[in-house]
């Protein structure tokens, strides 16, 4: 029988908390930028201009058909370092954190774009016609009539995607960034308590995600239109 030894965990809690802050930062940046960019992509995709619409569709298809690990490698090895060197030649930014922010924001935008597109399409045509009959421009119809209702309808889906994103952010392990799991794995390797640290990290994720998804389910019942 395996003899558990949890003694290294209490001393590591401050480091794990630092890691959790990194995880939360990545999640938050990806949610905010992802939803903004995703809304633009969704609106462009539904626009009447066939070229713009095809470009938006290509963006979504491209990001949704390659693994997140590959996306992270692209941003780490090929895309972010040259741009940063060109824009800020002298500064010493935290390159890994920047890679994580941009990779997750652009990747999640493609998933959010699909959710938002479905949300926009779920609003009935009659509303658009009524707004146009009132003399609203296309932009005003989108901003004042369609998007507010669409966002209310898709809030549960957007939040569920946020929970998935919170879990996926652990993949920054690939680019060597010390997020919550990265710190746990580092401590596991340096203290030799692999089993305890990995189980602890898993339990923390499980409790957080279960709590969040229960909240989302309650919310879903309340905001049905």
């Amino acid at each position: 029988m395996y003899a558990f030894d949890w003694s290294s965990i209490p001393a590591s809690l401050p480091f794990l908390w630092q890691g959790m802050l990194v995880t939360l930062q990545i999640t938050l940046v990806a949610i905010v930028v992802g939803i903004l960019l995703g809304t633009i992509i969704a609106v462009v995709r539904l626009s009447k201009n066939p070229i713009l619409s095809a470009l938006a569709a290509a963006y979504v298809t491209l990001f949704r058909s390659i693994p997140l690990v590959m996306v992270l490698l692209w941003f780490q090895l090929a895309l972010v370092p040259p741009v940063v060197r060109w824009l800020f030649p002298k500064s010493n930014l935290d390159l890994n954190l920047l890679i994580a922010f941009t990779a997750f924001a652009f990747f999640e935008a493609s998933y959010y774009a699909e959710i938002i597109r479905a949300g926009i399409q779920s609003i009935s045509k009659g509303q658009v016609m009524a707004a146009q009959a009132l003399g609203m421009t296309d932009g005003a119809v989108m901003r004042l009539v369609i998007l507010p209702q669409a966002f209310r309808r898709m809030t549960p889906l957007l939040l569920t995607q946020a929970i998935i994103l919170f879990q996926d952010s652990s993949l920054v392990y690939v680019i060597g960034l010390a997020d919550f799991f990265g710190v746990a794995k580092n401590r596991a390797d340096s203290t030799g308590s692999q089993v305890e640290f990995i189980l602890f990290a898993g339990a923390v994720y499980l409790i957080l995600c279960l709590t969040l998804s229960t909240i989302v389910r309650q919310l879903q019942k309340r905001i049905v239109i």
Partner: protein
Amino acid sequence: MTFVVAVLDFSVFLSPSPESGANYLTYLLGGALWTVILSVLSWVIAFIIGSMVGVLRTLPSSILSKVGACYVEIFRNIPLLVQLFVWFNVVPDLVPGFGPWFKHLPSFWQQFTSATLCLGLFTAARIAEQVRSGLRSLGKGQFSAGLALGLNIKQVYGLVLLPVAYRIIIPTLTSEFLNLIKNSAVASTIGFVELARRSDSMAELKSTVFEALLAGTLLYGAINLVVLFLSRALEHSTKLPGLVGAKK
């Protein structure tokens, strides 16, 4: 476009790779092959366990359906990466019979075993949800009709409900298989030399970042296309008569 093609150096794919007697093209193709093998084998596990858990969740017994629900919640609420390290670093230490056998394997097969089990059981939770919703969509009538004909519960599921439910959920199962292929890239984190890992090491060994990542990305795209093509054919040949999508 011509500019990009001019800058890329495709001759690098013909230079010798770390594998003896091979070049980087076959090196990446070999990675793609391991991605496919890993995905297909995990799919078999996921399909069997996922079907069982999905059926459990629709059974009248509330205890069994709770067991199914627990399985789904646990596997869906822990990041895949963490689950992979649980299979790779934790399970061999904790499970008495498995540990000694696992530790005698060469490291390649240790990585392969962990990744297959991890991806299989992770995907099973997602398949279980789809099997459940497929079974739900059939309504109570078919279940009761089966029982009224004198079939036992096992026969009702095996002969009546599941054959129809599977055919209804083929499109969502397809996208789940595509997810599985993408998720299999996580195996690179424990050192398994599948496609993502090999394009990464080619990028570093040959300092040909664009060529290596582009080739890896295109290969993932190609695998996706093949799967989509096969699933369209499967969907076409198993269409249910009497539904909107059916042949006339």
